[in-house]
């Protein structure tokens, strides 16, 4: 039990340190690496909560997908990779606002007694149950999410490609018309 709580404290420290790195560093690459570290800490918490499958998905999608996409976007555009001057006054105001939020919600959390369900049986956490739920109760949400992802990919390709296809067609027409 003792070693478990030590592990939880370490994971929470990794997550908080990564998030603080992401929130306060001016260099973009450092912030992205902070986000990655934070994801690893949170994935450890997920495993402790009982769901290794969701933890693996979190690491795969965030570290393997989102972080890498951010690094690519950073490398493609020069102006993004160079850190912009941060306004100290703005940071102070943001910290004050977030601090007030933490105080308010922290008080609420501390003063609330949550009903306990007494813990789930290990069988309730089986990955097979997630697969069954995806295809039965949550079928519509699953299909909707896949449509949203498809539209996001098509939309981002269309946005990033911009005016180029029509321009190319115009020049192709011009070449055809020339001879």
């Amino acid at each position, binding site marked *: 039990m003792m070693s478990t709580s030590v592990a939880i404290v370490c994971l929470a420290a990794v997550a908080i340190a990564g998030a603080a790195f992401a929130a306060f560093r001016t260099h973009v690459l450092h*912030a992205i690496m902070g986000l990655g570290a934070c994801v690893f800490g949170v994935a450890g918490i997920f495993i402790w*909560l009982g769901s290794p499958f969701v933890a693996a998905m979190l690491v795969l*999608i965030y570290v393997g997908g989102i972080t890498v996409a951010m690094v690519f976007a950073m490398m493609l555009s020069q102006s*993004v990779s160079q850190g912009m001057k941060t306004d100290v006054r703005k*940071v102070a105001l*943001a910290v004050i606002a977030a601090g007030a939020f933490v105080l308010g919600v922290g008080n609420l959390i501390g003063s609330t007694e949550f009903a306990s369900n007494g813990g789930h049986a290990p069988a309730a956490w089986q990955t097979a149950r997630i697969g069954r739920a995806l295809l039965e109760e949550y079928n519509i949400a699953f299909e909707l999410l896949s449509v949203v992802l498809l539209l996001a990919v098509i939309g*981002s390709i269309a946005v990033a490609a911009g005016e180029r296809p029509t321009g190319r067609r115009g020049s192709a027409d011009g070449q055809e018309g020339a001879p």
Partner: protein
Amino acid sequence: MTLHVVLLLGLILFALGMVAVLSRRNPIMVLIGVELMMIAAGMNFLAFSSFVGPDPVVGQMAVLLLVGLAAGETAIFLSMMLVLHKTRRRIDVEELTEVRE
């Protein structure tokens, strides 16, 4: 008690994401802040379904859907940023005010 610890961790992560969203001028930093907030929300879903809810599948489904949405959002956001970089060399969140009027 353990539920409170996880909720407090989620609260801290959410607040750090909030600081990044509110104070940064670089769009990638704003995106990182949004992602931090989404991770914190997902952790709360899983914590509640682990300690309070009757069925842990519900919380796991919520986290999976949330992560999928975050991936789509990142794709759209980054492509918009590339277009902004092509049309104007410098991307500053505070200078993007054309749609406001």
